[in-house]
């Protein structure tokens, strides 16, 4: 196995261009596990830990440009206000040690449907910044996930950053696991209300071959929601929203849970998220919007 260790972003892009089969590694919380368990033998690794800037975030217009290598700990500490759903997801990732190393770039690169960062990125309409020697392109998260562990990233591209739009309303994230910390999602759900565009965003994790949205649920909630006053939604509407989210999932039975439970739990998470987001909207609506 070849080990490439570029010192600059340009060198990293050149390396990826020359060796499109090389796997980038940063925190190693995914890649090393696969190598250690002998599930994957990449012909080459590109170590990005020496590349400056990947662990930084900065304001970008109204929003935030989050370097692909910012560890989850950094997101929890700094982005609770700028990216509430992502920060909540980051808080639920694995253990403190793994949060100190793992990053959103790694989640996007591995593209496991169980990755905790995906549902917030989908719900908030974040944008993935991909780079190659040929230039930079920006792909909305909503167009990024193509199939099981398959994404819009080309083999010669590296994930540079994620652009997180400024929140324009309450955001929520929750995940179900069978223990109370350090657990891979049985199912997860993110919700974002956007008061400016009067739209609702959703993201579903661990309930299909890729991270998913629930477009029908989004349209339904956007239409039902009281964008003026954030009045509590009728029980029936909250319930319907849960059903629509569950219907959008394509879960299977596996060691972590049954397909039936995943749909059930998604509906519960979605109901709770919408009801709470509405309450948040009432309480802090003016400030968020």
């Amino acid at each position, binding site marked *: 196995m070849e080990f490439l260790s570029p010192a600059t972003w340009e060198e990293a892009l050149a390396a990826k261009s020359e060796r499109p089969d090389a796997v980038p590694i940063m925190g190693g919380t995914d890649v090393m*596990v696969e190598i*250690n*368990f*002998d599930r994957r033998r990449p012909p080459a690794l590109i170590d990005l830990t020496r590349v400056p800037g990947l662990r930084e975030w900065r304001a970008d217009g109204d929003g935030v440009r989050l370097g692909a290598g910012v560890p989850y700990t950094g997101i929890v500490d700094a982005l609770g206000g700028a990216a509430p759903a992502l920060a*909540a997801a980051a*808080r*639920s990732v694995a253990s403190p040690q793994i949060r100190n190393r793992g990053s959103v770039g790694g989640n996007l690169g591995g593209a496991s449907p169980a990755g905790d960062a995906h549902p917030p990125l989908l719900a908030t309409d974040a944008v993935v910044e991909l780079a190659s020697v040929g230039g930079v392109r920006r792909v909305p998260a909503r167009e990024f996930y193509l199939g099981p562990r398959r994404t819009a990233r080309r083999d010669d591209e590296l994930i540079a950053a994620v652009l997180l739009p400024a929140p324009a309303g309450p955001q929520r*994230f*929750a*995940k*179900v*696991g*069978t*223990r*109370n*910390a*350090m*657990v*891979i*999602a*049985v199912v*997860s759900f993110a919700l974002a209300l956007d008061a400016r565009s009067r739209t609702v965003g959703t993201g579903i994790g661990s309930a299909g071959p890729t991270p998913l949205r629930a477009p029908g649920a989004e349209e339904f909630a956007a239409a039902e929601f009281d964008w003026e006053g954030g009045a509590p939604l009728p029980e029936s509407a909250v319930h319907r929203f849960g059903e629509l989210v569950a219907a959008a999932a394509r879960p299977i*039975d*596996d*060691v*972590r*849970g*049954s*397909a*039936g*439970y995943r749909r*059930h*739990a998604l509906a*519960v*998470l979605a109901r*709770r998220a919408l009801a*709470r987001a509405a309450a948040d909207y009432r309480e802090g609506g003016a400030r968020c919007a």
Partner: protein
Amino acid sequence: MSETTAPASTGLPTATRDGVGASPLRPDGALKATGEFAYSSDMWTEDMLWGATLRSPHPHARLLGVDTAAALALPGVHAVLTHEDVPGEKRYGLEYADQPVLAFGKVRYKGEPVAIVAADHPETARRALDRIRVDYEVLEPVSDPLRAAFDPDCPLVHEEGSVPDDGRHRRGGNLARHQPVRTGAFAEGATVEELRARADVVVTGSYEVGMQDQAFLGPESGLAVPAEDGGVDLYVATQWLHVDQGQIAPCLGLAPDKVRLALAGVGGAFGAREDLSMQVHACLLALRARRPVKIVYNREESFLGHVHRHPARMEYEHGATGDGALLYAVARIVLDGGAYTSTTPAVVGVAASMGVGPYAIPNVRVDAYGVYTTNPPCGAMRGFGAVQACFGYESQMDALAARLGAHPVDLRVANALAQGSRVITGQRIDAPLPMAEMLLRARDAPMPPGRSALPDPADPRTLPGGVSATVLGEGVVRGVGYAVGMKNLCFSEGFDDYSTARVRLESVGGGPAVTVHTAAAEVGQGLVTVQGQIARTELGVERVTVLPADTRVGSAGSSSASRQTYMTGGAVKAACEAVRERVLALARERGPVPPGARLSLSGGAVVSASGDVLVPLAELLDGSPVEETREYHHRATRMVDPVNGQGDSHVQFGMCVHRAVVDVDVELGLVKVVEMTAVQDVGRAVHPQQLVGQIQGATAQGVGLALMEEVQVADGVIRNPSFTDYLIPTVLDTPPMRIDVLECPDPAAPYGLRGAGEPGTLSSTPAVAAAVRAATGRALTRVPIRPEDIVGLPAPRRRR
């Protein structure tokens, strides 16, 4: 957060610090906490090779041929061995020698070792494994234990004659052992119908316990070094050096004294290191390659490389009179032993004799079965057959209490055993057993504060779902449950699991010093600390060195069955007493000791009855060390009768009572254990702090079995062999614990102590299950309880 009732003082002389009853620091504590402790996987020598194991990908297959030529041709490979290269016995085992060193004829579980390799780098060894060609004829797995046990048309896992049948406890087929127990009317041939007709209330239930893993953190590992005399020195993490030696030597074709073992740093055991794993393999490779060979399993291989707790399928029926007096109990307990015997017969013996729990029941019919299948082999794990039964009988007691409208504690108190009672094998309990008091103490312990009394009632860390923030507290229901369990301690059924200790007292550098040498395995339980305490108390000398455990001294038996403080503690005590006798004789002989004076050792000196120093030990022993070796045997037990299960088969009984308080998100089926209260009688607390640690650990392991820990097996294949998917409790799943230690001495045991490592693993699980039932109203007849079970959805389908 935890509250502990400190045991009373020991009553022994206190002039010597850190003796029995104190809680001295453990010598390995700081090293383990700071990551500096050398575990067996950390061993390294200059010229060592790395061993690796090729394992069967099939749970059941005929082995047609193994071609190692391509592997041997790989540069850097020093040896590739198959069953043909095993010079001695081809099979080993704790009870029957039925497990092949390397498979021949058939493979009987997925992960069974087929070939081994030694190479100069672990990566080279791995590549060599890829080059070994094995021809299999795949056979249908025997994966249903009930079919394996009771369907005469089920294929046999072991061909007739390949596992010894004693015609009594094992009579062929796929049954490793069937142990019936019959008492009262059942012993006279009464039918269940006859007893049912006499009962006012009858409850029946089918229960299931999943396959729990010991989940120790240090994987199987060891280093074998070939010796000049043609023998081998093996440094290994194990639970019982001598039983390893006794199995390894015949396989190597060597005399036992040519196979010398020393204990390497053990990263937890819980029963999983009682069977051999890499021991014979490393020795074979080292002897062939004439180089030291180290083998370290990775986590996935570890799940394949050790036995697990037997999964159980259990049917119970209890009948009682209207006033809540138990009339009869019937139980059928089927334990899936997997491919090889391991300790299954002994586990069956425990499950049978402890099968209906610590209750006075005049008429009992128990049938416990251990079954061969092509599932992963199962054997020893903390609680050893009593854990499974406890979930069954305690679930029944709760169901009966509900039917009678009685408090679950009151029903248990009304039917409690006590000193003088007989267990269902007819054995009389001759030591104190304050069961009723223990139950009442658990019930009457203060309750944890309700959610509204918390500083932040919506703190996700206090809620079901934890940091995943699934709930703000709405719809969370609290439940309380109780359970009690009784466990036999030390080895049972005629097994003389003696322990040996060598103790030396001498003058070193002008001061007295004690050296203790045993072969007892420190597996993390704190036995090294306890050995030192006993020596200090008995010899009145604070400076004690406990030598590394190895086979240069006699057997100490296994670090299991809650027995080491009792047995090796007893041996150290006996050796110390012998040393003391000689030292006092020496003092009388040489010193200015008044004739007939009563002497003792304290503060490094021979002292008179009034505490006056007569002669310092350093002076007395200068140039003449005193050394004694003693074996300690517990009282004899015997095998129970194969037909009615009667006989005094156990040494001692341990008991723990748990109260569990849980919060349940009933919509999502997630549980937060709020608090566990444990009441345990330990006879005598030798090291109160370590003791509380044992009870906390046992409780946590029981919480794990109740809520998350399961090796998921489908068609003989483990589907979650990792700590990503085999979940063990984190700190957020491990609640504050209130631990109430009673000390009612057992006159037959050293210092009156009672083994303490296991009882808590029994009652913890059913107490949590009872609490979740109380919160949800669901029957919950299976552990671990899955979210699906709580919300009422079908369980996930098991797929390979």
